[in-house]
């Protein structure tokens, strides 16, 4: 089974801090994604990546950046954390070699609180 591991289940940080959320997948998937999930808003795509060192903006990239130096690892960076970035963050991966629109495999999420 595909395993997507997010480094922290819960994280508490202060406003203005630089925050790193890490995600690792073990199935050699080309595609990786970062979402945030808020009540009443569903999942919103922040950034995604098709390959190492490649990144594409999603719907809400402002205040975030990403890094993909290795195929299995996709990091989300909050450059200067703000309280409106308190949320559940979900990482996902999917293969490309079987074509587009493949099911995504999710990690268990990081619940981030910015104080």
């Amino acid at each position, binding site marked *: 089974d595909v395993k997507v591991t997010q480094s922290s289940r819960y994280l508490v940080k202060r406003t203005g801090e630089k925050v790193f959320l890490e995600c690792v997948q073990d199935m050699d998937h080309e595609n990786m994604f970062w*979402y945030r999930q808020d009540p009443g808003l569903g999942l919103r795509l922040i950034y995604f990546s*098709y390959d190492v060192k490649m990144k594409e903006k999603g719907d809400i990239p402002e205040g975030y950046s990403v890094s993909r130096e290795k195929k299995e690892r996709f990091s989300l960076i909050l450059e200067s954390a703000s309280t409106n970035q308190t949320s559940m963050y979900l990482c996902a991966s999917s293969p490309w070699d079987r074509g*587009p629109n493949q099911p995504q495999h999710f990690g268990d999420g990081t619940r981030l609180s910015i104080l």
Partner: protein
Amino acid sequence: SQQGEEDPQALSIQEGENATMNCSYKTSINNLQWYRQNSGRGLVHLILIRSNEREKHSGRLRVTLDTSKKSSSLLITASRAADTASYFCATDNFTGNQFYFGTGTSLTVIP
């Protein structure tokens, strides 16, 4: 926005009953997927239906797709307490890997 919208927002049924959730979307799609999310966990893929398919089954799940109405439904038959979760539909952006998730239906199955 292409985001899907699920209906109802919340559903409560007795164990053994069937549960039906609906999803509406706005633009053309290649496929539509349904996911389940247990409380505090990530999403788990349930089923994918392609735009040229009208119905698909997987165990106790039945999904229908009506592209003319831009809508899909998920039916869970003979529900169990373990089916208690939130259910999301996801539509693609027609060119490839980006998906748009709805806001979900929260299903509670009462033992």
